[in-house]
């Protein structure tokens, strides 16, 4: 009797903890409210990775009732792929479940939440690929869960996008080293071949 009720209790608490864990882990993007206003300013034209910068400002929407931001403890600002850059590239796919979502892969800034207007200046990192981007900010509560967001583009992610051109990754020194080693391989091969042929011919003549 005691055993079965103990087992029942164990089962119930396991189930409950699973549910709580589910609540913690499985946040959907569609459940978030768009309460932050995010704007970006960049230079005209295509930005160069490693050189140009993106300036982001954000603040909670002032027209919303006060107290909307009572839960917000930290804000993370991220660089996100636009739909045109996600096409044919499943590794950048937008998925509603936030922990599986691959839309925003680069962190611009992470700060404690502040009611006043926040600005961040970010030099585009050298590992950012060539693509079209927008900026999104997530607000987190004390448990580290997303509770709200804001982005610099519209819901369809078509307006206010900017282009970034990646570094090529090539270097003159690398190119030269490549050529040198390749030349060494070819020269040593043919050198060996002719040397052996000559040795063979001279030993035949003897």
């Amino acid at each position, binding site marked *: 009797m005691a055993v079965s009720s103990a087992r029942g209790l164990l089962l119930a608490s396991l189930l409950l903890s699973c549910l709580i864990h589910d609540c913690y882990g499985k946040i959907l993007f569609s459940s978030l409210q768009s309460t932050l206003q995010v704007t970006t300013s960049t230079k005209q034209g295509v930005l160069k990775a490693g050189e140009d910068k993106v300036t982001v400002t954000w603040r909670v929407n002032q027209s919303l009732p006060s107290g909307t931001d009572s839960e917000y403890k930290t804000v993370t600002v991220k660089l996100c792929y636009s739909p045109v850059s996600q096409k044919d590239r*499943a590794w950048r796919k937008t998925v509603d479940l936030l922990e599986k979502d691959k839309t925003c892969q680069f962190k611009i800034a992470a700060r404690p939440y502040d009611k006043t207007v926040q600005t961040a200046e970010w030099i585009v990192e*050298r590992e950012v690929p060539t693509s079209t981007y927008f900026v999104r900010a997530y607000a987190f509560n004390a448990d580290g869960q997303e509770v709200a967001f804001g982005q610099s583009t519209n819901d369809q992610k078509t307006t206010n996008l900017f282009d970034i051109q990646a570094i090529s*990754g090539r270097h003159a020194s690398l190119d030269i080293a*490549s*050529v040198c080693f390749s030349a060494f391989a070819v020269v040593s091969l043919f050198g*060996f071949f002719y040397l052996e042929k000559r040795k063979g011919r001279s030993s035949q003549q003897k």
Partner: protein
Amino acid sequence: MTDVEGSPGTSMHGVTGREPAFASFVDSPMVPTDTTAKFALPVDSEHKAKVFKLFSFGKPHMRTFHLSWISFFTCFVSTFAAAPLVPIIRDNLNLTKADIGNAGVASVSGSIFSRLVMGAVCDMLGPRYGCAFLIMLTAPTVFCMSFISDASGYIAVRFMIGFSLATFVSCQYWMSTMFNSKIIGLANGTAAGWGNMGGGATQLLMPIVYDIIRRAGATPFTAWRIAFFIPGWLHVIMGILVLTLGQDLPDGNLGALQKKGSVAKDKFSKVMWYAVTNYRTWIFVLLYGYSMGVELSTDNVVAEYFYDRFDLKLHTAGIIAATFGMANLVARPFGGYASDKAALYFGMRGRLWVLWILQTMGGAFCVWLGRATTLPIAILSMILFSIGAQAACGATFGIIPFISRRSLGIISGLTGAGGNFGSGLTQLIFFSTTRFTTDQGLSWMGVMIMVCTLPVTLVHFPQWGSMFFPPSKDVVKSTEEHYYAAEWNEDEKKKGLHQGSLKFAENSRTERGKRIVSAPTPPGSTPAPV
């Protein structure tokens, strides 16, 4: 190698049925040892080794083995070196899924042609220079990876690096000049399997090298380019070792080969004819495309698959992907061993069943891999898939020597090419389009494996039977001699050119399994005096 009619042991050959197809040594009565030769290993009259001693580096036989398999391994490393780094490369070069898939197809397509040419190159220059030329001339293509800046460059360079896989041919050719034909099965099988391991080793090596270079301070988009210098240097080092330490023949180098040219060689057109008109050739070309072919395809996609699907770090995905290719160490020889064991009891029918079972199970596990949603299940199914596919490769080459005696070389070559063709085809259909996600592609590839393995049920040997049918009841047609002698016309038979095939036929009676003790003496051949 003197198999004189009537010499001790020839008439008893095959009666016990215990001679394995993958023997590791040759008994002296069968092949007399040349006692005048001074080599590290016992040799036959052509000075080919009669013993296969794995951990020796003795000149020239075992040294050849090690130079051979390591060269082939190196080429596998460089051909698949891009695969574990694709998550970085795709961002640097702005690749789409189609670009990545097409590059994978390109990496295996080049060698279809280079393997066919390599045979002729080995005939002309010898296997040592054949290997050295290929490995040294593809070294620049590996170094070229540091230049590329877009998708077309990426595809072109991977295509050119893929040519290096023709070292398979030089490897097998070189081994056949050094090892007696009775142990060549094991020697070649081990060399091929260990070479294939390179496809696994590279998934481990490249992410580690990339990590080290990044820690040294390079940005990701430069680090992967520098990482390619490692396979490039391996090419150069192996090329130099082959040139300085290797030799073409047990007794010396190229000059002797030219003397050998006085031996009458078979007509290429005839050999080709008997290869392509034997329907079994084409069934095995198809089958190998779905054992070796899917192994190559998986080498190209599995690291990226684990990286994306399970959100792993690059080197973690690399370690997992490496276990796929490294299973070749034991899986491929296991397939050959299982084939031999089955032949002991059931003869050729056993070999066919073993091949069908191994390859179909490989396909089933591939389906499971595509459907796995948790990491442990994915890893388990991947390992089982690798064992199935690679053992099937080993089992395939347990059967190929029996399809034809006259055209064995070309059939082996065609089968090998079929492997690469199958790889290109599966990558094109399942992994180059957005029609299938990678997990769906893997599952459908598994289905295609199972379907394309079914034709093995059609392979019928009149003297041994097939999977579902027993051997022919006809007294003449049910002999091995009839099957192998059918490859020679009357003129050639009059000249006695078919004697080698007859000898082979006699030796191949082991493929009757347990029935051989009661094998009837074939009509027309006089029993040799014991």
